[in-house]
């Protein structure tokens, strides 16, 4: 357990050192930078809230990723699945705006799940029944999702006000307040999204290790032959694993929309503009957490803090935001590169072992 946390953290620190050197090279004050990094992500109540909110989509996507990975499917379609979830939940809120909160809120969140599940399940279905590799299909489905988003926000879903004013900003009108994610402490911006995310991680854990369904998924992930022998419907399992992974990403999309300060969906023309790359970063968070849903909770927090701190660092010492992006990449690389060490140290602990086996199980079903 110690190795599980110590190694990734050491890796992160290593990457940060490099980052600070780069900052010094850019003529900015690394001490200030570091201060801002920590202050801006953990230093104050607002900073903590910022971090928690940033971690929320990472955790939702990451929890889904653990389910996919344990079934040995690589889901790099989180971006598109988040968009799909966001769009379906947004449309729902626009279609039935007058429902009471106690119906509308659960409904839109459910629609987020559905939208993502469809987007992910589609890739799963194509893989399981048509042999279309999920890497190809998810990359392509991301492209489809972004165009669908731009189409809908430019046309059917656009705020009528934008047409009248002629400003034509591709965004919906403010969504019904009944659908706002309730704030936890009234005044500040901490909404209930983080609770949903933690619940999702716990759900993923229970699903994988406490249910027969999860037993089947993990069996498929480790050995399709043994799974089939155990009577598991392998194709069905692969499809459902990607659907679940997508559903949680879709829920992340819905949380982004109904937890956003603007309480509306808006596009800058790219997926990242909406997702903030959580579809990718969630994968990283899941790895931080050793592909275990519960460990993904602190991992997401850590990575969220890094992203928030990075942005505050940028503001404080005015280095180009590109540096922060590069820094994230560096962190991912150092963490993933030291994973072997982590696995070695953690070897013997059940799921370290299982995660290790997974790597070798990957091959069989990459077809």
């Amino acid at each position: 357990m110690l190795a599980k946390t110590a190694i990734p953290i050491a890796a992160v620190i290593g990457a940060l050192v490099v980052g600070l050197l780069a900052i010094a090279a850019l003529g900015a004050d690394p001490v200030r930078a570091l201060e801002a990094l920590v202050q801006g992500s953990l230093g104050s109540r607002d900073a903590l809230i910022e971090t928690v909110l940033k971690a929320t989509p990472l955790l939702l996507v990451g929890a889904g990723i653990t389910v996919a990975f344990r079934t040995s499917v690589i889901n790099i379609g989180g971006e598109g699945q988040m968009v799909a979830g966001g769009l379906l939940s947004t449309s729902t809120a626009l279609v039935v705006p007058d429902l009471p909160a106690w119906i509308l809120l659960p409904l839109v969140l459910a629609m987020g799940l559905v939208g993502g599940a469809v987007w992910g399940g589609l890739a799963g279905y194509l893989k399981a029944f048509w042999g279309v590799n999920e890497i190809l299909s998810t990359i392509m489905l991301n492209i489809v999702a972004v165009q669908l988003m731009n189409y809908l926000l430019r046309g059917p879903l656009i705020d009528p006000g934008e047409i009248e004013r002629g400003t034509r900003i591709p965004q919906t009108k403010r969504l019904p307040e009944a659908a706002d994610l309730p704030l936890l402490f009234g005044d500040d911006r901490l909404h209930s999204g983080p609770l949903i995310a933690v619940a999702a991680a716990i759900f993923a854990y229970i699903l994988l290790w406490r249910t027969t369904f999860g037993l089947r998924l993990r069996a498929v992930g480790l050995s399709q032959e043994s799974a089939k022998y155990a009577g598991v419907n392998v194709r069905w399992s692969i499809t459902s694993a990607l659907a679940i992974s997508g559903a949680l990403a879709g829920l992340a999309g819905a949380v982004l929309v109904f937890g956003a300060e603007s309480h509306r969906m808006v596009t800058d023309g790219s997926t990242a503009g909406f997702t903030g790359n959580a579809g990718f970063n969630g994968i990283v968070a899941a790895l931080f957490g050793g592909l275990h849903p519960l460990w993904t909770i602190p991992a997401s927090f850590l990575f969220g803090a890094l992203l928030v701190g990075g942005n505050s660092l940028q503001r404080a010492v005015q280095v180009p935001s590109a540096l922060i992006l590069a820094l994230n990449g560096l962190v991912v690389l150092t963490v993933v590169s030291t994973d072997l060490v982590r696995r070695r140290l953690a070897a013997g602990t059940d799921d370290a072992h299982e995660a290790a086996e997974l790597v070798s199980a990957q091959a069989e079903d990459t077809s």
Partner: protein
Amino acid sequence: MTEGPMLELRGITKRFPGVLANDDVSFDLKAGEVHALLGENGAGKSTLMKILYGLYEPDAGEVLVNGSVTSISDPADAIAQGIGMVHQHFMLVPSLTVAENVALGLDSSRRPFTDLDKVAARIRELGETYGLSIDSDAAVWQLSVGERQRIEILKALYRDAHILVLDEPTAVLTPQEVDDLFVTFGRMTDEGKGLIFISHKLHEVLEVSGRITVMRLGKVVGSVQTAEATRQILAELMVGRDVSFVPDKAPREPAEVLLAIRNLTVAGDRGLNAVNGLNLEVRAGEIVGIAGVSGNGQREFAEAVAGMRDIESGTIELSGVDIAGAGPSIARANGLGYVPEERMHEGMIGAFTVAENLILVHHDEDEFSNRGMLRFPAIRRHAERLVEEYAIKTPSIDTHGSSLSGGNIQKMIMARELDAEPAVLLAAQPTRGVDIGAAEYIHSRLIAQRDAGVAVLMISEDLDEVLAVADRIAVMYEGEITGIVDAGEAKREDIGLLMAGG
């Protein structure tokens, strides 16, 4: 030219987590001799050879080639030293052609391009010299095990190995193929090559080798001139006590037919039919043993019966219900218990705990799950009980299946399958790769099942096992049952003949 050993292994020790695979082992090989290495499964034979071939680093000990100490830290070194190895598990790239597999890793006369035509020509020559004919352009996946075996030997010869290690080469061959192989052995020794021959089959060892070294639990327990050796002596050396080659079992009257297979045709992986219109009945309270050389459709047959493989035509009736093609769940639901041949990759999941593996196929039953939620107390109790009942050697029920020994993995699977009280039990190669102790135990379990009125169908390539355990013996050849005899009046020779298709 046969003075002074061409190869010498001194005090080799190799430790794996939890196992002392080789314990101060010494071994030598003279030019022109066949030196047999004998031992139960897990005795450490392959490990010793893998060290010789540079696949494992020994913890201690040294290797001498032609009298001088040499360090062999990877296969390239071994090859350079004129050492060739035919691995127990084939080292071939299925998607490549024979010539490509042979040429792999060799310099080409036409660098950077391959010179496969030259390679093919040389393969033909070697084939004629050593009696190993093969089509160089065929893709390996299309070839029979016997042919693949030949490629492995050709690979070594092509690199003019003087020292050739053959790790259980005969396990997968028909009697005829074995004879041909031994002819090839003769030609190689005539040229002064030295052969290390690993096998479990005593009569083969006695037939072909000049010297025999026996290993047990990682140690050398004896080395004898073949001339002075007998089956009994070798068996006792291997096991460390005298072995009952025949388990005791009371005669019993079979009752109604529980498994009826009619005109079953099953396609193999390459599309050709592996099972052709096979008919067979198994009755309550009898053990039907299927003898045959591997690759005659036994695997496909077993998978079809277990619901793991779709069938082309025919019926498989379990207590009257046709389950052909319905899938494993359905087969099991109708009373089938199945001990698969592919123990590691099919029967269990290495990264699952013993407890998880013990419910792998029954996790859906009310005892172990309640509306989709696993019931851990019940699962643990179940595991504890079976570990106890079936004497499964494991540190705990939370240990990973993969850390159990072959014999105990098999016991674990048997425990799971038998505890479900099947009406029909299908056991494929139940004792392959398990030591004689566990084998005896498994045999007694199978017989107990039969006595309890279960219809037992056992598939084995080990004729002695079939003879010892089965009530009726059905011989399978090229996807068909070529004959059924009562174990009572079965003669080894006749069955051997049937196995060869004669």
